[in-house]
């Protein structure tokens, strides 16, 4: 016999979800041939569960018509309903009482006459977030490289402690763009190393939104040395391997699309893949993070000067020259060189100061006798291949990649929902200069130095990272941090996950914005051409140190570049930051300091301390006047001498840029800047051409 026939009963509905959300229900009662609905009932889960209001599901006595009940979930696009499970408080289950149809359960309180529920009925709805699988495509050097199980990249202890960096020699390529050691293989995508959280923070953030590594979250480790244009021995490219990876993910998960997060070079590989598979790329959303769409001048530096990847201080660490040797024939570095489109957009990025007719001036001084040339794109290619003996085959391969079709390709036309997160607000080198000069013996020598900064992430200028067809409302700007930290740092990390998963993680507007005007640089750029080292301390004790050619940089949004003896510092002054800048001579000769005031990314004043004597005993400070931003030097040429204040040799206000050759003369540039180049064009100190000489 039923234990509680015709009794009053209450339905308790609980909603479970693997990721919190809001769920829509409708409760209905069937009586006398009609359904009477409760109206929409929203249940929001908190800590993965939520409770709906109780609903009366009492039985009717025999003299009344029987009643039935229905609970139906209207499942949103973001979730799927995996299970409905109903039971009585005596634990009794009966298909006679409960019948399940898709997203609803029907309750017939008298459906089973042998037993019945007592006072309470419980129904649990289990929801799962529908997750489009995500693939993270790292950038250059973002995948670990091994040789016979020994880690070559990035083996931080060996980088620091190995007396020579020759353990990384197997990473080098031959002149003919083949690996010098065929036993080198890839390992995992780098997650975390000392001082750098590359993808670990991002993975953890995705995991908090219900993604599971290996099931819905995937990595694409690849041999980054080949870049986009390089080909493996079997003719495959990294974009071919990306296709394989995407196909594997689709097969494993049963999904129709994957969402892609691509960092730096990874974005170029994704772009090439989409171009090759425009109708069947199977990419839903793509988020480009710090992608050098039209290249980055830092790649030129890596090829002609080398780069220690931030590993080094004093006698330990990576050697620029060793890294230059390893990079020489790698297609990947050439793929990141500034392209014709970069040149068309931003102008020349290499300037030549020819001081060979002018032996009495400093290496980077500009006099009436200095011939200044801003290289056009073809001259730049010649400069790289002929003057610097770089790999012409690799350069040709990179040019073959960066065609107009590639650089202007609109991924949206291939069905990709494209977003970009661009690091800005950090001073980034956009132009450098080569000086030719004669030494005492009449030999012609060359030297390199950075010469111009603009906004970017410290590696990729914002002109390059934003140079792709994309909806304006899908462009985001990260206001802090640097290129290699963009994936996992606060702000951009949450924004990436929000864009991909639809979550609403809080993103501080001081960290990520959609307003490009917040990216403007405001600060001081100081270029030191000299055998003089500098170190900087800000008001909170954070430092930039340049010791023996190696650097540390703790100051947010500051930048430093080192080219041999020459250094470029960018020190932000948006918030009135104060700095102590110390100098220490490292050799005998002369030094020149160029201090530029930058306001809203424009150089508004340049102060030049030209051709001052340097010795190893020289010490001093570069002082920035907090009132008018002017710069003075306080120098002790020797340990015995008294400190002396040095004012700039020349001050060039930024608002008198000449617009014609006549103006060029009138404004007095000839007293310092080289007025005319070989083409008789009027040029200001910054290399901007203002017209032909009459």
């Amino acid at each position, binding site marked *: 016999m039923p234990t509680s026939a015709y009794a009053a009963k209450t339905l308790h509905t609980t909603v479970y979800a693997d990721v919190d959300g809001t769920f829509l229900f409708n409760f209905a009662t069937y009586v006398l041939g009609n359904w009477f609905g409760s109206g929409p009932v929203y249940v929001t889960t908190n800590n993965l569960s939520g409770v709906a209001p109780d609903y009366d599901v009492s039985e009717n006595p025999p003299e009344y018509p029987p009643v039935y009940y229905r609970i139906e979930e209207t499942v949103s696009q973001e979730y799927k309903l995996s299970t409905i499970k109903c039971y009585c408080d005596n634990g009794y289950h009966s298909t006679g009482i409960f019948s399940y149809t898709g997203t609803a359960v029907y309750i017939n309180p008298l459906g089973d006459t042998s037993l019945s529920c007592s006072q309470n009925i419980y129904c649990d709805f289990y929801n799962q977030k529908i997750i489009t699988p995500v693939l993270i495509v790292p950038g250059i050097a973002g995948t670990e490289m091994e040789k016979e199980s020994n*880690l070559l990249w990035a083996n931080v202890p060996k980088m620091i402690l190995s007396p020579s960096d020759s353990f990384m020699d197997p990473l080098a390529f031959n002149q003919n763009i083949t690996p010098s050691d065929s036993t080198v293989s890839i390992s995992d995508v780098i997650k975390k190393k000392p001082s*750098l*959280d590359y993808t670990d923070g991002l993975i953890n953030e995705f995991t908090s939104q219900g993604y599971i590594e290996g099931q819905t979250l995937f990595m694409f480790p690849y041999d980054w040395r080949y870049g986009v244009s390089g080909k493996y021995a079997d003719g495959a490219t990294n974009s071919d391997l990306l296709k394989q990876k995407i196909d594997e993910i689709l097969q494993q998960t049963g999904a129709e699309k994957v969402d892609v997060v691509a960092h730096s070079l990874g974005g170029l590989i994704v772009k090439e893949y989409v171009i090759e598979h425009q109708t069947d790329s199977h990419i839903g959303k793509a988020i480009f993070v710090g992608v050098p769409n039209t290249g980055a001048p830092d790649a030129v530096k890596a090829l002609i000067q080398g780069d220690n990847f931030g590993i080094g201080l004093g006698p330990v660490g990576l050697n620029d020259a060793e890294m230059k040797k390893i990079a020489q024939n790698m297609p990947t570095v050439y793929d990141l060189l500034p392209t014709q489109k970069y040149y068309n957009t931003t102008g020349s990025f290499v300037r030549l100061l020819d001081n060979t007719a002018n032996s009495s001036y400093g290496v980077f001084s500009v006099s009436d006798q200095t011939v200044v040339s801003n290289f056009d794109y073809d001259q730049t290619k010649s400069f790289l291949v002929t003057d610097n003996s770089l790999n012409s085959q690799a350069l040709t391969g990179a040019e073959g990649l960066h065609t107009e079709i590639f650089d202007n390709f609109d991924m949206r036309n291939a069905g990709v929902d494209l977003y970009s997160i661009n690091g800005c607000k950090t001073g980034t080198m956009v132009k450098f200069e080569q000086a030719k000069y004669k030494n005492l013996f009449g030999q012609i020598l060359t030297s390199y130095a950075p010469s111009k900064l603009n906004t970017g992430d410290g590696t990729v200028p914002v002109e390059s990272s934003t140079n792709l067809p994309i909806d304006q409302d899908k462009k985001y700007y990260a206001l802090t941090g640097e290129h290699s930290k963009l994936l996992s740092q606060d702000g951009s990390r949450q924004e990436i996950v929000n864009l991909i998963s639809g979550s609403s993680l809080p993103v501080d507007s001081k960290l990520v914005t959609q307003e490009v005007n917040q990216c403007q640089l405001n600060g001081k750029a100081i270029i030191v051409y000299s055998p003089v080292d500098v170190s900087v301390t800000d008001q909170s004790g954070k430092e930039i140190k340049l010791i023996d050619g190696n650097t540390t940089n703790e100051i947010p949004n500051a930048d430093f570049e080192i080219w041999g003896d020459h250094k470029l510092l960018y020190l932000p002054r948006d918030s009135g930051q104060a700095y102590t800048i110390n100098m220490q001579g490292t050799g005998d000769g002369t030094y020149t300091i160029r201090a530029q005031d930058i306001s809203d990314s424009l150089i508004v004043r340049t102060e030049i301390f030209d051709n001052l004597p340097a010795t190893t005993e020289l010490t001093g400070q570069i002082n920035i006047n907090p009132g008018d931003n002017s710069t003075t030097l306080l120098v002790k040429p020797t340990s015995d001498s008294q400190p002396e204040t040095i004012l700039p040799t020349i001050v060039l206000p930024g608002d008198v840029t000449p617009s014609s050759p006549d103006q060029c003369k009138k404004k007095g540039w000839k007293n310092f800047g080289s007025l005319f180049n070989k083409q008789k064009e009027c040029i200001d100190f910054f290399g901007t051409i203002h017209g032909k000489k009459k």
Partner: protein
Amino acid sequence: MFAIPEILWSPVLNFYYGFWQSGRSGNVNTLRNNFLQKADNWNYLKFIILLQLIGLVLFLIQLIRNKKSIKKVKYFSILFVSLVVTFLVATALYLAMAINLRIF
């Protein structure tokens, strides 16, 4: 100054553990997870290790000053251990300053 941060967060021990782990493939795990292990807090880590180093140097100075009031064997034992720990902490600080890994 050395002991309390080490008891609370093990900055020096964690640093060496993570440093040697980064010489092999795979993720760098932490011995004791805490805020100092976040890469964003690398500067705090350096600062804490600097404080520990200062504490050790001050301890060494005090130890040498009070040389006569401590038995010889005990004195040299403490001095030896302190010098070794100071060397390790100084090395950790130097290495932490030398590393600012960048990936393009």
